């Protein structure tokens, strides 16, 4: 077999494999989007894999008119921002300090913080539930936000720790010599040099927080405090009959922000991860 024929076969195989993987990874969301336009009759009469009989946005109208989707969005946005901003600041400071500053007990503190990677979050649910209950802050934003910050710290610090190793010492040194205080150096020099790593951690933790189920499920009680993930169950009726059209429309709406966020940041996320990956 000549070289070119071989190459061509490889190309065809590659395209086939790529397409197969694409179908596996993307089909569910394709199914959701197409099904969100199906009418109740479509669900009853058409085969499950069939496309909707006609273009129809009734399900979307239903989502916004029959459920408090707007409130859920507001809650999810407040919670996601409330988790992300403090989390990024404190985990970046800690990760940076642990990787760049040499001091006694450095390794011990790192290992102590990394224990959190092994602790299952559910362990904290019973104590936190009773503590929050006694403090009267169940069903408030802090009750959902604080545990998520605390339990995301270990992984975020680990990521920032490995990213910070790649920051050139010389530039930080130069800023200090020029009379910058350590805090100003961090704000003015370190943070601007680390946009890729910040975006990487922000994307990962932002998506996790947006999609969080167990915190919101355990620590909130009222409809006014529900997040978008909990709101997805609004269309499951009492008898276990689900309004699938509305559910799929709701999924489409709630997934949209994470898609947009990911599409925008995916490039910086990849370069952030590439920098931090191998040195671990």
């Amino acid at each position, binding site marked *: 077999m000549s070289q070119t024929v071989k190459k061509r076969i490889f190309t065809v195989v590659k395209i086939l494999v790529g397409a197969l993987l694409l179908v596996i990874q993307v089909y569910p969301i394709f199914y959701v989007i197409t099904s969100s336009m199906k009418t109740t009759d479509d669900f009853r009469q058409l085969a*499950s894999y069939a496309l909707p009989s006609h273009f129809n946005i009734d399900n979307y109208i239903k989502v916004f008119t029959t459920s408090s989707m707007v409130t859920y969005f507001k809650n999810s946005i407040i919670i996601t921002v409330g988790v992300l901003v403090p989390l990024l600041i404190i985990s970046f400071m800690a990760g940076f300090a642990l990787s760049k500053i040499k001091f006694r007990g450095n390794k011990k503190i790192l290992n102590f913080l990394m224990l959190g990677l092994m602790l299952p979050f559910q362990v904290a649910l019973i104590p936190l539930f009773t503590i929050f209950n006694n403090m009267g802050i169940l069903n408030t934003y802090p009750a959902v936000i604080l545990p998520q910050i605390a339990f995301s*710290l270990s992984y975020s610090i680990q990521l920032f720790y490995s990213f910070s190793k790649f920051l050139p010492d010389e530039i930080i040194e130069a800023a200090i010599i020029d009379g910058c205080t350590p805090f100003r150096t961090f704000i003015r020099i370190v943070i601007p040099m680390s946009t890729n790593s910040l975006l990487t951690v922000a994307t990962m933790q932002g998506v996790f927080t947006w999609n969080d189920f167990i915190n919101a499920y355990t620590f909130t009680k009222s409809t006014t405090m529900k997040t978008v993930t909990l709101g*997805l169950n609004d269309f499951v009726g009492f008898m276990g009959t689900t309004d699938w059209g509305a559910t799929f429309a709701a999924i489409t709406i709630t997934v949209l922000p994470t898609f947009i966020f990911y599409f925008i940041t995916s490039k910086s996320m990849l370069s952030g991860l590439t920098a931090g990956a191998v040195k671990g």
Partner: protein
Amino acid sequence: MQKAFGRKKVLLMFLLPALVIYVLFVVVSVVWAGFYSFFDWSGVGEKTFIGIQNYLQLAKDATFWATVGHTLIYTVICVVIQVLCGLLFAIFLSRVTKGRAILQTLYYVPVVISSVAICQIFSKLLSVTPTGVINAVFSVFNPSMATMEWISNSHVALYVAAFVEGYKYLGLYMVIFYAALIGVPKDLEEAAIVDGANVAQQYWNVKIPYIKPVIISNCILVLNGSLRSFDISYLLTSGGPGNASELMSTYMYKQAFSSMKYGYGSSIAMAIVVICMIVGFAFRRVSERGDTA
């Protein structure tokens, strides 16, 4: 730099916020759960100190041990799907020349969908009446598959839940592996080619050994993620049928928040902590030994 940053005040400023929140929520919760585990308590009213009664009951609780077994099976399946398939996806991606960025983004899609949504999607895809997409596809090859039960079938429910969990996060590990693979220095690859290595040999002998630290850290992430996984089993199969797909964490949750046995639930929580620690340290031991060998 060491001088300026190394001062106590500066160090405290950088480390204290993280340490305070970590200790206040993570460490205190675990200690607190340990404290509750010695009581008989329904969440309201008086706590009764009962010593290690909860642990004695736990040791005899066949359902709990079944959930430990389920969790281990679940974890193994997740490691295979997320680490092995994630690595294969990444290798494939690194061989693609055209449209790589778009493929990488699209392969990641399931990761950004919430587990609530994923469970709803899969309960529809796997449904039997009306015939869901998956049964419809399988019935092309074998007509009897049209009526195959997945979620309510005690023989496969656990595997289905583990598969969905593995599937959901595969893209995340793929991206990390891919980032590691493209970070392999070009001269290593070129040296291998000069030595006459074919593509498979380049990966097996050069690239994969080079990214071994990433493989290990991903394994740890998957191990920890699956040992404590909750959402899919709780939402997709509700631990059922019976307790065929009940995991340690869902069992704990139900004991505490549905059966209102906070003390007993806390003792399960402590058992989960111990099991996670043992598995975590054991894995670290094994992977470090592999390093020196």
